[in-house]
């Protein structure tokens, strides 16, 4: 039988078990004497707790709260900072903040106890929106100015000079909303003890993050806790840091109760009381000459971080670094400000801060182009960054940028230029286009300075086992990684194992995030496999390697200068729509995309990621509305927070340009987030052209289109 080639399309290694219902998710686990847990949460966004009244607890039932954290422990979850408390203590800062955990055998009794627990509050005035935070509504939540994190970067001549020389300045504010992950499997975790060590089973992206985050609660070391990732039914960033919020209280409970305890969120809990994508507000001031050429862009970018920092500073950095899109403008000044509000903390979501600013810059450029009578595609293509071009952080693009080729392929496939001219503005039909990128892996030298990823291959007979901390969460990584290993070793994929990680058995290969798994971990595995192949006849042995940072990527994390990313994925999308003039319903009649992801490891997986990422992005632009009133999310079910079905975006044409990446395994770069980053802007561009309206805020369901029509 011929060996599997790196390009061959294969059936995903996890497909059969999942299709048959044999895969075990955390809610399927039942251990002897297992107890259940449910959360007691804050019902107000900002208040001092003046009393907690519990009903009488039957024997074997517990209320676990901050009081149960031992003296040598600290009430903090260690994500990037340590500000997020495991249990609210004395005050609450957002609706849904964990106050305590009710634990016991019978879920009916737990529900009764939960319903009859009363918390007394002395309420404050919550700040919910970015504007509330800036206005210090209700007084500052953090520091004196509600600024949780901020940064800036600049390039070219001082903006003051640029604005002085400008013929005109175009200013606009572009906003994006909350987005809920809606992973198929809700959040859940189960804790137990084995041989005196705590063992947590969790639906999670980053098992090593969990043990680091929660160990301090008991004043123990991360190695004293074992995390076993259970088959994870989707994550999209929603299970990057958020599992800590379940596992922390469970660990404290376990230290008191010493029995297996399971905590699973139902769908409405997962919607109302989990992290979301950061809402954003970007103010661009663009200096233009008479002909409409861009002299420079100044951007002020606000992200709503919610009540705790979580990953917001890093999300904000990525937002700022992507705020000039795929373009090389002569001068730019970009400032990012993450503000604190009394909403559920915002956190990682596919794209990690880049989608907000990419949407903003694309839409802003569309508006400038139309103002000066240029076709947006032609106008934007004048500014495409090239190899050697300077980035907003004064770094340089190291790879060849194939955007001109991608544009011409897309334009041909979609008949863009003919349609753009023929449909014009306000005809009810519209075609829109967008360009985007995504920096692969951790920002700057994070891979080298912070993560220092390890991977290990273990040979036992003719079988080889991959030992990494990276996780399969539906994206296809088990298939991709087994393929990389098998292909490099020259053995069958069936002879390579890659079990879900157990932190006591595998080295830490870093989080499964930042589109880094194939590009970074895949590369280390490839290097291990190369060595193992050479030593194949030595019998049973293992090879472990550490990440090696490619030369020539200078970066200063203190000043944010240098090469912010090791390489970029590039994308372009065209969306064609027809809008019903009676109802404002948008009928999407065509979607075309072209991506540069280096070299694809598996085109079937890539195809799935492209389709899924684009539909998720179109949902973000078209219909996914998550509103927050007075600190409470209004959408709590999948019937009031709708994500697209295949009926909404039925047909996609896609293509790839091959552009092998020097430091990736078999030429691969990251791609999981890239494919989310741009279809939203193409969709909005198409709708704007179809109706002759200006959109500065997404999503745009029909009622918001109505508003834009009234303002047109």
């Amino acid at each position: 039988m011929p060996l599997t080639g790196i390009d061959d399309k294969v059936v995903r290694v996890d497909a059969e078990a999942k299709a048959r219902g044999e895969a075990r998710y955390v809610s399927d686990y039942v251990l002897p004497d297992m107890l259940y847990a449910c959360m007691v949460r804050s019902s107000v966004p900002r208040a001092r707790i003046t009393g907690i009244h519990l009903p009488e607890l039957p024997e074997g039932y517990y209320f676990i709260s901050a009081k149960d954290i031992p003296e040598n422990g600290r009430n903090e979850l260690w994500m990037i900072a340590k500000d997020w408390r495991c249990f609210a203590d004395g005050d609450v800062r957002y609706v849904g903040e964990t106050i305590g955990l009710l634990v016991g055998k019978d879920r009916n009794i737990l529900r009764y106890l939960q319903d009859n627990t009363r918390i007394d509050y002395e309420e404050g005035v919550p700040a919910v929106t970015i504007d509330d935070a800036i206005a210090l509504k209700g007084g500052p939540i953090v520091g004196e100015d509600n600024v949780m994190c901020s940064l800036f970067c600049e390039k070219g001549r001082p903006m003051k000079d640029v604005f002085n020389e400008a013929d005109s300045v175009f200013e606009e504010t572009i906003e994006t909303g909350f987005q809920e992950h809606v992973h198929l499997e809700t959040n859940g975790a189960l804790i137990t003890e084995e041989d005196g060590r705590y063992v947590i089973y969790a639906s999670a992206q980053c098992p090593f993050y969990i043990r680091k985050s929660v160990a301090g609660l008991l004043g123990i070391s991360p190695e004293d806790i074992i995390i076993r990732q259970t088959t994870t039914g989707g994550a999209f960033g929603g299970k990057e840091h958020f599992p800590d919020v379940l596992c922390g209280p469970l660990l404290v409970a376990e230290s008191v109760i010493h029995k297996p305890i399971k905590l699973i969120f139902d769908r409405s809990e997962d919607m109302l009381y989990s992290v979301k994508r950061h809402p954003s507000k970007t103010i661009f001031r663009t200096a233009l000459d008479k002909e409409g050429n861009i002299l420079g862009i100044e951007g002020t970018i606000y992200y709503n971080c919610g009540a705790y920092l979580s990953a917001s500073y890093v999300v904000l950095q990525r937002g700022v670094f992507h705020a000039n899109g795929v373009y090389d403008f002569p001068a730019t000044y970009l400032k990012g400000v993450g503000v604190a509000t009394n909403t559920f903390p915002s956190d990682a979501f596919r794209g990690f801060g880049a989608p907000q600013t990419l949407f903003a810059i694309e839409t802003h450029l569309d508006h400038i182009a139309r103002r000066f009578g240029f076709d947006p595609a032609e106008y934007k293509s004048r500014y495409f960054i090239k190899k050697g071009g300077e980035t907003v952080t004064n770094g340089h693009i190291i790879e060849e940028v194939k955007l001109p080729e991608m544009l011409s392929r897309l334009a041909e496939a979609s008949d863009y230029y003919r349609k753009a001219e023929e449909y014009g503005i306000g005809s009810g039909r519209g075609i829109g286009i967008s360009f985007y990128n995504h920096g692969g892996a951790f920002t700057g030298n994070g891979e080298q300075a912070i993560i220092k990823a390890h991977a290990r291959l273990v040979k036992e007979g003719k079988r080889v086992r991959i030992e990494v901390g990276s996780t399969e969460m539906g994206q296809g990584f088990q298939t991709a990684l087994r393929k990389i290993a098998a292909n490099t070793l020259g053995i069958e994929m069936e002879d390579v194992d890659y079990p879900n990680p157990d932190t006591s058995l595998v080295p830490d290969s870093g989080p499964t995030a930042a589109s880094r798994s194939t590009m970074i971990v895949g590369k280390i595995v490839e290097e291990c496999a190369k060595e193992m192949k050479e030593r194949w006849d030595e019998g049973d042995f293992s090879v472990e390697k550490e990440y090696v940072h490619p030369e020539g990527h200078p970066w200063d994390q203190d000043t944010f200068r240098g090469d912010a990313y090791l390489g970029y994925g590039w994308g372009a999308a065209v969306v064609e729509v027809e809008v019903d003039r009676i109802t404002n319903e948008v009928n999407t009649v065509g979607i075309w995309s072209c991506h540069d992801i280096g070299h694809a490891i598996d085109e079937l997986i890539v195809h799935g990621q492209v389709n899924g990422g684009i539909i998720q992005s179109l949902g973000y632009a078209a219909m996914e509305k998550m509103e927050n009133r007075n600190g409470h999310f209004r959408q709590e079910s999948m019937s009031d927070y709708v994500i697209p079905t295949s009926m909404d975006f039925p047909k996609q044409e896609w293509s790839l340009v091959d552009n092998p990446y020097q430091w990736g395994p078999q030429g691969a770069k990251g791609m999981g987030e890239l494919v989310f980053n741009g279809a939203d802007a193409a969709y909005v561009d198409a709708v704007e052209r179809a109706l002759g309206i200006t959109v500065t805020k997404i999503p745009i369901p029909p009622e918001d289109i109505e508003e834009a029509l009234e303002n047109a």
Partner: protein
Amino acid sequence: MAVNYVPSTLDEALLLRKDRKAIPLAGGTDIMVQGKRGLGLAPQLDRPVMIISHLKDELGGIRKDEDGSVVIGAIATAAEIASSDIVPWHVRMAASGMGAIALRNSATIGGNIGNASPKGDLPQPLILLDAEVVLISFDGERRMLLDDFIKGSKTTDLHDDEIIASIVIPPHEFTYSYYRKIGMRKANAISKLSLSAAATIKDGLVVDFRASSGAAGPKVIRSREAESMIIRRPVEDIEGIVPDFLEAWDHAISPHAMPRYRRNTTSRMLTRFLEAIVNGEPEGIVR
């Protein structure tokens, strides 16, 4: 925990209804959601439930009576209604756009009416068609217009001892018909707004004209006052009446959320329908 029942005959069901105030459950697609209590817990309602989904002989089926009326049994499902060729077009359209396939296979017309949500799919075209609801109890039967039966959002005139037995749609012959549902997405979505309209033209005269708005107020809205502005008027007069008619209709609806969108879209849909009449477009469905 409430006791739940599975009556084996309609008489038993009526007795349970009378004695125990049991809530009839046929498809369960609304009741199960209303009683939801969280993961791993059985749904719980404040009253006992009786399952009637198997009483097909007494409460199911779709038939046409001699006078041309269509009688739809209360436990006929949305899927059965959507695929029946004797059910009027407006009702079939609404049934075929309800939820997803799985829901249409279990949700029933009686449940959709009894739930009385202003966003419910079936009441809107049924009220357009002057459908009547047949209510039975141990003591007998009564009939009333569905429009009178549904009193407001989630409230009906159903007595504690009654169950909905069937829906009777009187015969009609329309020259023009119109139906639109705007959901939050293209499939498997709750209605954001809906409208049915119908008109009959005879010898240049509008002899029948009606419209009904869903999700535009606490219940489905029909305005006899607005309709009467058009009925018995010659077609050539209609164009001049349109502005006043639209104003009257706008006055009749009372959308709570997204009022601008709902009002403007309703107005545009009605305008489109009237335009077809004014222009003397080919008979049939107006799009």
